[in-house]
């Protein structure tokens, strides 16, 4: 069984998968990868199931060594990836020789993913391997930790996949919540005109947003009965700033929510750099369902959009430093078709 040893690990490195659904009634949110699209991309690059666990690196750094030849894929927020001195292309799959050292560094924030052929196995808690730090399940990984991998049935490496552009902020589409109409029309209008930025206080539970605009707080908002809340909900707490709930959010809440960001747009929020502009837009429920279905289909067929990495003739001696092929799809064809 292949074993991976962590040589260096900054804060915020965790095992993540699609989370553990089914425990909302007991107050445990599903959790899982902050950027689920990145999990799907990594699974496609390695030709394995998107339910397998990978390593999530939250704006940090990581170095590993494998006991045997190891297939990897790198997705999510780009980092500098170096294997025994040779630079590796991000958003691609690679084969590491046994004993090779992989260094991932230079994160500019967001969530980066290291996918390992066969996936990370290990302690399953309530049916999943992902750490849920807010619930006290699992923990952040540290230097010296060893991870066992499942059997890797794939062989292919040296493939790349154009990422869906989600690393510069942009538009976050949302649907109305049962409380949206509690916010006066003028306030809702001001909300969708406002350019927001991430506050430093973001984590896997949620992301606070800041803006130049005045408060969005509702006076009546402090005594709303707690009810179910979901990832993507934009809660307006007493201080008047929006707080968008993410993968590891609580399951109920009593602050009013002005909207719910579509799951297909959450990667754009979690991967936005600190100064990137974020703006909200209401869509109808019908539009939202169409968008979600289209994104589910796109994710299911990611494997068909892969392209082989080709080597630059000048670097031919360097087996790992590939250049991206030109003419790959941009990955946002869906949106361009709509527009």
């Amino acid at each position: 069984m292949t074993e991976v040893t962590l040589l260096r690990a900054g804060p915020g490195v965790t095992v993540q998968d699609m989370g553990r659904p089914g425990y909302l009634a007991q107050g445990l949110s599903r959790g899982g990868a902050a950027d689920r699209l990145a999990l799907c991309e990594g699974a496609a690059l390695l030709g394995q199931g998107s339910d397998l666990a990978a390593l999530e690196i939250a704006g940090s750094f990581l170095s590993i060594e494998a006991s045997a030849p190891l297939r990897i894929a790198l997705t999510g927020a780009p980092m500098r990836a170096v294997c025994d001195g040779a630079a590796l292309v991000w958003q691609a799959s690679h084969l590491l020789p046994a004993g090779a050292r992989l260094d991932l560094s230079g994160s500019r924030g967001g969530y980066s993913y290291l996918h390992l052929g066969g996936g990370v196995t290990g302690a399953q808690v309530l049916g999943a391997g992902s750490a849920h730090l807010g619930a006290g399940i699992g923990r952040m990984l540290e230097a010296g930790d060893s991870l066992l991998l499942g059997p890797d049935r794939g062989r292919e490496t040296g493939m790349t996949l154009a990422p869906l552009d989600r690393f510069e902020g942009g538009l976050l589409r949302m649907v109305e919540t049962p409380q949206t109409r509690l916010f006066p029309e003028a306030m809702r209008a001001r909300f969708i005109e406002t350019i927001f930025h991430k506050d430093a206080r973001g984590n896997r539970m949620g992301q606070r947003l800041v803006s130049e605009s005045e408060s969005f707080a509702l006076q009546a908002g402090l005594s709303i009965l707690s009810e179910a809340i979901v990832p993507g909900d934009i809660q307006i707490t007493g201080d008047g700033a929006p707080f968008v709930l993410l993968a590891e959010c609580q399951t109920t809440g009593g602050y009013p929510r002005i909207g719910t960001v579509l799951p297909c747009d959450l990667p754009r929020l979690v991967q936005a750099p600190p100064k990137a502009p974020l703006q909200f837009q209401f869509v109808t429920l019908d539009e939202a369902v169409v968008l979600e279905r289209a994104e589910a289909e796109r994710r299911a067929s990611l494997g068909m959009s892969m392209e082989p990495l080709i080597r630059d003739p000048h670097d031919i001696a360097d087996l790992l430093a590939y250049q991206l092929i030109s003419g790959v799809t941009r990955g946002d064809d869906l949106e361009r078709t709509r527009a």
Partner: protein
Amino acid sequence: MLPTQNNKQTDAPGIHPLGVDGLLIRFGGQLSEPANRAALACRAAIERDPPTGLLESATSLTSVYLRFDPTGTDHARLQHALAPLLASRDWYQADLPQGRRLWHVPTVFDTDLAPQLGEAAALAGLSPDEATEAICAAPLRVQTIGFAPGQPYLGELPPEWDIPRQTGLTPRVPEGALVVAIRQMVLFSVSTPTGWRHVGQTALRLFAPEKDDPFLLRPGDEVLFQPVARDAFEAIRASDPSGGAVSERLD
């Protein structure tokens, strides 16, 4: 948004979309005993015969949340599928769940383990001692489990406790913290930020992921807080993994 569904009953549940893959069935915008029982019974009935596309369900105080697969069904179809069940009975007359238990829980109501008791008591028009007495006077029922794993919402306190949440968030309260707002109490299963006021401390472990049954409390259970001095509490916390809690069956 879909229109709220109404039938002959004036207080029939309203159905609202909650995100692109969810529905919320609301039995009331205010907490009431019948609405709470209605939500618990309705969810149990839906779980016994789940409609196509349902992925999971949960109750909160007076509502049922349904999460579905949006690639296989949608809000309107699920709502249509649920209509006969919702109209089939008066949910507000439903009984409490079976197998309920009464828990006795040692709790500290002073020192820095209860930093906001004075503030909350003042909002309720009580002295700190009167507030402690009121909280411990009678068992509070677990109306729902939610927010964090195994975390109970307990109620209902007398009307003078209808105090709002605070404007800002307390950055962190410890596991086992007892907090209060809007006639309810919550026990925290994990260390967490909160907008509720921290008025007491227990040593309960509400969520133990390594156990076969990781969740200590269930909706319908009752909790009676027993004031203890800080040194007695520290002794319990140091020696008893169950935080000194003992339970007895209610039915």
